């Protein structure tokens, strides 16, 4: 639970002392702006802009000479390999503030916004230094990640002539990590790299049907007694009340009975706009599935479609439809 009452009041008073202060460090770029670091950056980003790496193109451009990519601004003052140790300068008030948050249980940290302005493009040989000020700390907020506070900082960059070349702001959330996610260290809580579609729940009455899909068949349940077809599967025939059943395989040919184009919300694992149709199969039962490889504007009620069974993500096979040839 987040701190409350007098503890919270005292904590927020402590926070006030940090608002408006310089974090106490003047970051001096360790190297002048130079072609090697710029080239390394451009290679990493796949940025082929000649203004950064080609002296001839740069000279002919509005820049007149080689310049550094503007979004590289902060790279000129970052600490490099020394950052890997996690140790920080004891004079760093920003780190001190973060430790204060940590001590009250707000151990989570995430950057949510950045804004940057570039007064001019940096040229080779420019020597850059930066000063950072803690601009503001928000009131306590309930966020999707948990209860916490937003810290806004502003870093101003100057050149060797003490002229401002740009600034950037960062908005960082220090938050109390929700207990559920903090305590669960099992594999399943780790974010996988690629989201998958929602899988069906399997029970007595439907698992066999999904087994057929695994074997690339679109099955339709059939009453053993009166031979009526039915979908979705259920344990009893509504026509004759018989409990015995078997199934037939659909040809997958059908016509669109109705359809939708889903645009919102966008659920991870699916591609939008997403067309879903109720298809009347030629056997007479209906089936709901995606219609692929079609402009949503061209889908119509009555359109002939053909099913095929395909992997729709890394793990799941599903019957999907395409316009019939």
């Amino acid at each position: 639970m987040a701190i409350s009452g007098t503890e919270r009041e005292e904590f927020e008073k402590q926070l006030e002392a940090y608002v408006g202060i310089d974090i106490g460090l003047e970051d001096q770029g360790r190297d002048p702006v130079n072609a090697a670091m710029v080239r390394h950056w451009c290679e990493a980003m796949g940025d082929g802009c000649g203004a950064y790496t080609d002296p001839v193109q740069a000279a002919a451009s509005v820049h007149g000479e080689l310049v550094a990519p503007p979004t590289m601004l902060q790279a000129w003052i970052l600490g490099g390999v020394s950052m890997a140790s996690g140790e920080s300068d004891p004079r760093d008030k920003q780190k001190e503030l973060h430790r204060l948050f940590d001590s009250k249980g707000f151990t989570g940290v995430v950057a949510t916004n950045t804004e940057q302005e570039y007064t001019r493009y940096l040229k080779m040989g420019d020597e850059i230094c930066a000063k950072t000020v803690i601009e503001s700390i928000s009131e306590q907020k309930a966020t999707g990640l948990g209860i916490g506070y937003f810290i806004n900082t502003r870093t101003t960059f100057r050149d060797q002539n003490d002229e401002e070349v740009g600034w950037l702001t960062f908005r960082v959330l220090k938050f109390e990590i929700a207990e559920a996610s903090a305590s669960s260290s099992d594999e399943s809580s780790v974010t996988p790299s690629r989201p998958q579609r929602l899988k069906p729940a399997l029970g007595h009455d439907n698992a066999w049907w999904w087994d057929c899909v695994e074997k690339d068949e679109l099955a339709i349940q059939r009453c053993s007694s009166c031979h009526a077809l039915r979908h979705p599967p259920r344990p009893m025939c509504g026509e004759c009340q018989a409990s015995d059943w078997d199934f037939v395989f659909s040809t997958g040919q059908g016509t669109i009975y109705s359809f939708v184009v889903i645009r919102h919300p966008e659920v991870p694992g699916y591609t939008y706009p997403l067309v879903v149709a109720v298809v009347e199969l030629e056997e007479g039962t209906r089936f709901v599935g995606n219609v692929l490889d079609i402009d949503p504007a061209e889908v119509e009620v009555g359109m002939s479609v053909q099913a095929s069974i395909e992997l729709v993500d890394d793990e799941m096979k599903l019957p999907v439809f395409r316009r019939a040839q």
Partner: protein
Amino acid sequence: MPTTLKDEAAIVGIGETEYSKNSGRSELALAAEACRAAIADAGLTPADIDGMTTFTMDNTDEIEVARAVGVGDLTFFSRTPHGGGAAIGVMHQAVMAVATGSAKAVVVYRALNGRSGARYSEGVSGGPTTSDLIHWSWYMPSGLMTPASWVAMVTQRYMHETGCTSEDLAEVCIAQREHAIKNPRAFFHGKPLTLEEHQAARHIVEPLRLYDCCQETDGGAACVVVSPEMARDLPNPPALIRAVAQGAGAHQESMTSFYRPTMTDLPEVDLSARQCWEISGLTADDIDAAVIYDAFSSIVLWQLESYGFCKKGEAADFIRDGALRLGGRLPTNTHGGQLSEAYVHGMNGVNEGVRLIRGTSTSQPAKNEHVLVTAGVGVPTSGMILGQA
């Protein structure tokens, strides 16, 4: 002693919380506040209440609400399933309890943090393997997992069969917005809607656009049901329940209707309507105003047809000249409805029905002898007719 549910009970008190996007308190608090307000409006005290009923989808237990409000012994408590279809089902329960003597005064409530808490727009996903989840499993893998997507499917077919257009749906939204403009409880209080704005709004699930979909609201609403005799001694003019009925139809599915012989037939709504007319002895011609369940604009049209205000497939023609607006044939959702006031699963509509009978709606039609109030569509549903005592 066979009983038909005609004039067996009356609504004598209504109450609600403010409707917002972030209530800042628990659903229990919302339920308790709505119940307290409804009991006070009825001129009763919590000690007078001996029955409580709500939706199966309500997260707050009756006895928790009872303890919070200070209600004592309960001789009747029950729940009604199927989301918005329960909106009048809960009234049906309350009326049966009063008619049979199982309870003397029943509080009906529904409270949800529908915006700041779990949002229905985010759709179904997992949970225990119930028959319900097996049902959704036919759709989740294909991405069809929100109420908007299910209702859009039926809407598309309806438009195909009847020629109804998105502009026709807009008329439902605009008519209701005209009402909401005057209602201080409404989210869209003071904010008109034009046809151009409706048409320019983004699609949520084609063919439904943003304003065709109801809101997501934090709030609670409640009412108190007692016998007509008891109602005579209470301060507010009672809204007599002239008929109340539930219906689940052939080939009933939850929200989807995809496998029904005709997707656009709504046998459960037809069934609720038929019973309402049979029990009350009234017809559509006797109804002066209506609160028609409106999770989505299109479902209003289908209910107009099922309740016989127009022929099947002709609702768009019926509303085109302003039938749903004040001065029209059937002023509807005079609070703004769930599209424009708030989404409280239809319970805010029950309260508006009572206000229409009392003559206190912010969009009050001149004639208010009989008011129809309905519940959700595409699920087992319910409906009632309110009248003046």
